[in-house]
């Protein structure tokens, strides 16, 4: 009983979860604002949604999930003190972050080419702002992963020095988690005929 209680802890740096929690609450408020505006203009939002390509969103989800898995594996290897096995996993996570960014840039380019901008209508305003805010999180996280990768190659992480790696991992999982909800909200919320 006592042993179980002693094991219970929040991973990552002290106070980090305040940032994670508040960031998630802010995104929740943005989701609700989107739903609120959608309620006032269902037809417009449905027409806008149909111009999006769910293949982009779906593939991006797969990329971020794989990236999360890589980071999770890097943390597991650090806990097991298999130091040489940490950098490849972080490299994998980093390249997934790059792939997500590249895919988003292609998607934006396609939309702008087709004449859709944030000024087009309320749906496109939300689409661009929400995905851009998320993309900023992804870009920040990708830079962070590059730093972690570099640190891991110098043997900076092991079972007694986990805080930095864990904190980065938790942030990256949050970025993944937000996309898991943002993707269906923008791409898959079908209005009944």
């Amino acid at each position: 009983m006592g042993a179980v209680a002693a094991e219970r802890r929040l991973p990552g740096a002290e106070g980090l979860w305040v940032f994670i929690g508040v960031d998630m609450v802010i995104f929740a408020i943005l989701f609700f604002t989107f739903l609120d505006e959608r309620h006032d203009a269902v037809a417009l939002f449905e027409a806008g949604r149909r111009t999006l390509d769910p293949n982009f969103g779906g593939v991006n989800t797969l990329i971020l999930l794989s990236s999360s898995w890589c980071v999770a594996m890097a943390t597991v290897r650090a806990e097991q003190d298999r130091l040489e096995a940490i950098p490849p996993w972080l490299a994998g996570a980093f390249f997934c972050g790059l792939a997500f960014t590249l895919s988003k840039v292609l998607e934006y380019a396609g939309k702008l080419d087709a004449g859709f901008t944030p000024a087009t209508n309320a749906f496109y305003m939300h689409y661009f702002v929400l995905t851009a805010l998320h993309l900023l999180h992804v870009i920040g996280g990708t830079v962070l992963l590059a730093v972690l990768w570099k640190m891991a190659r110098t043997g900076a992480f092991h079972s007694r020095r986990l805080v930095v790696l864990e904190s980065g991992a938790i942030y990256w999982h949050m970025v993944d988690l937000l996309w898991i909800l943002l993707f269906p909200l923008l791409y898959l919320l079908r209005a009944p005929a």
Partner: protein
Amino acid sequence: MSSSAWRPLLREPSTWVWAVLMAATIVSTWGFSQHGVPARLGTVGVFLLAAFKVRLVLLHFMALRHAPLLPRLAFEAWLLVVTAVILVAYLQPIQCGAEQADPALSVWSVEGAAAHAGPVQKQQFGSAGDVCRLIVW
């Protein structure tokens, strides 16, 4: 060769969590949201799967299953509230197109703003969808 390289990975719970997450994504993106599935049913399915995926990420990847009860409950409550609000907002009946879509953008000119005054001003807290905001505030 490759199978021996993969075998240790299969012993890691993270790998299985990842596999389930990938499968759930494929089902919701290229299954539930296809035209063959009725819109309401498919969409509710998509969001229930999404909630399931978020919970997996929270509990396994973010290790909240090993966390003290209070933070764990706080994050699970976040998921519950977000999923519930999305589903309620999606399923509530919608008044037939009486409300005109208010353009979110307007021109930054005096004429533009004056023209904006004509239609009914959109209330900060007024329309039916504001259940969402009230919960947050």
